[in-house]
């Protein structure tokens, strides 16, 4: 994911000049070794165990008769009739005029089309919001006048709930992908601008002073010092906002879009189908988890210089 362009010049230079024999700690092979093999398996095992425990508790409640299967169907019920549930996905195509109930894509295809559509909206919205927010955030600190003109408005709009933007999205973009993407962008953008500014203000003054004494211009200080220095923080911000994006996209889809996970949830609500609700929640959970995993992988690759504090904390 093109989050921010790191100091490409020196980065590329380092790659080109690296002696083949030298042992270096951020070689791809070693990084893969870090992520891969037993470590990776162990992580999967713990993830499965964590989810399994939660599901087990739920199943227990059902077995004891505390959880009414009509209202809170446990995993073995809402996951079992996949073919039945899958029908409800991809609502737009399935109930197009002229399509009989038995025609159209299969259950699996329907789920994939819906998941693909929602994921694309999240991804595009996230990328747009990140690029815009970092751009505007850096510009706010770079030009004092821009700061004075823009920051108050950004701060003013930050606390506005995405729900309030929903009518605006429909006024502006009607129905389709555009309003859903707009919702994701508008829900994340203002916070991420403030987060960017916060990150810039947290850059060690020593690093900036070093660059100044070496004769760096303002643009060089921003390009070569501030942007690389805020990258770790910005990726953390991005990870947190990833979950925000998944939350908002459902709200957006529940109204102004032909199909998507939000539509499925709305359909489940209107037809009183708890099984479908929990099935969709499970799918969203898996998707969000996968996104987060990919982002962490990217984080480790882009931010090769960060120490592993987590390992130290574990030793406490």
């Amino acid at each position, binding site marked *: 994911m093109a989050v921010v362009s790191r100091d490409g010049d*020196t980065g590329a230079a*380092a790659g080109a000049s690296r002696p083949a024999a030298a042992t270096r700690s951020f070689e791809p092979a070693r990084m893969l070794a870090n992520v891969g093999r037993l470590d990776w398996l162990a992580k999967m095992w713990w993830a499965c165990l964590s989810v399994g425990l939660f599901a087990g508790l739920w199943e227990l409640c059902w077995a004891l008769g505390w959880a009414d299967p009509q209202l809170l169907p446990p995993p073995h019920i809402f996951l079992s009739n996949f073919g039945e549930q899958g029908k409800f996905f991809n609502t737009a195509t399935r109930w197009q005029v002229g399509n009989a109930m038995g025609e159209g894509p299969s259950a699996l295809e329907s789920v994939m089309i819906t998941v693909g559509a929602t994921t694309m909206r999240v991804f595009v919205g996230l990328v747009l919001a990140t690029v815009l927010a970092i751009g505007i955030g850096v510009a706010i600190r770079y030009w004092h006048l821009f700061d004075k003109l823009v920051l108050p408005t950004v701060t003013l709009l930050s606390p506005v709930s995405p729900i309030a933007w929903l009518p605006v999205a429909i006024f502006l973009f009607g129905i389709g992908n555009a309003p859903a993407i707009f919702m994701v962008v508008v829900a994340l953008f203002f916070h991420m601008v403030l987060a960017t500014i916060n990150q810039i203000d947290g850059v060690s003054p020593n690093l900036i*002073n070093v660059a100044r004494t*070496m004769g760096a211009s303002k643009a*060089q200080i921003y390009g*070569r010092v501030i942007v690389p220095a805020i990258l770790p923080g910005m990726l953390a911000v991005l990870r947190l906002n990833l979950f925000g994006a998944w939350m908002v996209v459902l709200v957006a889809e529940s109204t102004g879009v032909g199909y998507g996970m939000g539509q499925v949830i709305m359909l489940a609500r209107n037809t009183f189908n708890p099984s479908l609700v929990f099935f969709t929640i499970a799918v969203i959970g898996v998707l969000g988890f996968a996104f987060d995993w990919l982002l962490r992988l990217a984080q480790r690759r882009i931010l*090769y210089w960060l120490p592993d504090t987590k390992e130290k904390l574990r030793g406490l």
Partner: protein
Amino acid sequence: MAFDAPTFSSRDAVVCRGVGKTWAAGTKRAHEALREIDLDIKPGEFVVFLGPSGCGKSTLLYLIAGLEDSTEGQTWSFGELVETPSPERSLIFQETSLFPWLTVWQNVSFGLAIRGASQAERRAVAAEALQRVGLSAAMDKRPDELSGGMRQRVAVARALAMRPKVLLMDEPFAALDVQTRARMQDFLLDVWRDSGASVLFVTHHIDEAVALADRVVVFTARPGRIKTICPIDLPRPRNLFSREAEAIRIQLTELLRDEVDRAFAEQEALATAT
């Protein structure tokens, strides 16, 4: 502030005339850090700034570097008025100030990269500077793979790569353990002799001042003024356990104790007032 023709040699490395600095001037939180500093530093001289914590000695270093503007007086370096930072006056900080995302050699040649030097040239200059600090083997390492002492040596190499005429050092060895600090002091003296640059070195360690300085500038407590300038004529390498060194140490201790007492009394008065 108008000055008549300045009465100093334009060949002097650093000249301060009536320099003062008030932080947050004109506000309620204004406080005076420095007052009426007059100082002449010769090319190739090793000068140590000694004073109690918070006396403004670091502030003076930042003013000479051109990173902060003085509120009173003016500073010249080799006849030129100090208005902005310059590669001729390199600053080395107490904390590590290496860029963690760059390798050692990229850190050392950062200043050249800014001027748009070719990669071959940058690597050559970095190799030479790293050789001077004895870290040729660490060229391609990252800063977090080095010890604290090695990192400060890389910071020195980075400063040397700019071929500075004045090296400004803000308690550069304060975070190091005692043994490493002693080795770093010897190392710094070697580097200083080779480079021919003037060194301005801030510390609150009396031993460090005795080990390093041609002259020790002793500061008063806040607002920082120059209390005394103490020349140290001992030949190098210095025996810090000699009677002469001991005499200087006692003299500096006495000078400093008054100021620390004064700073304490002031702080106590301030605490009871609020």
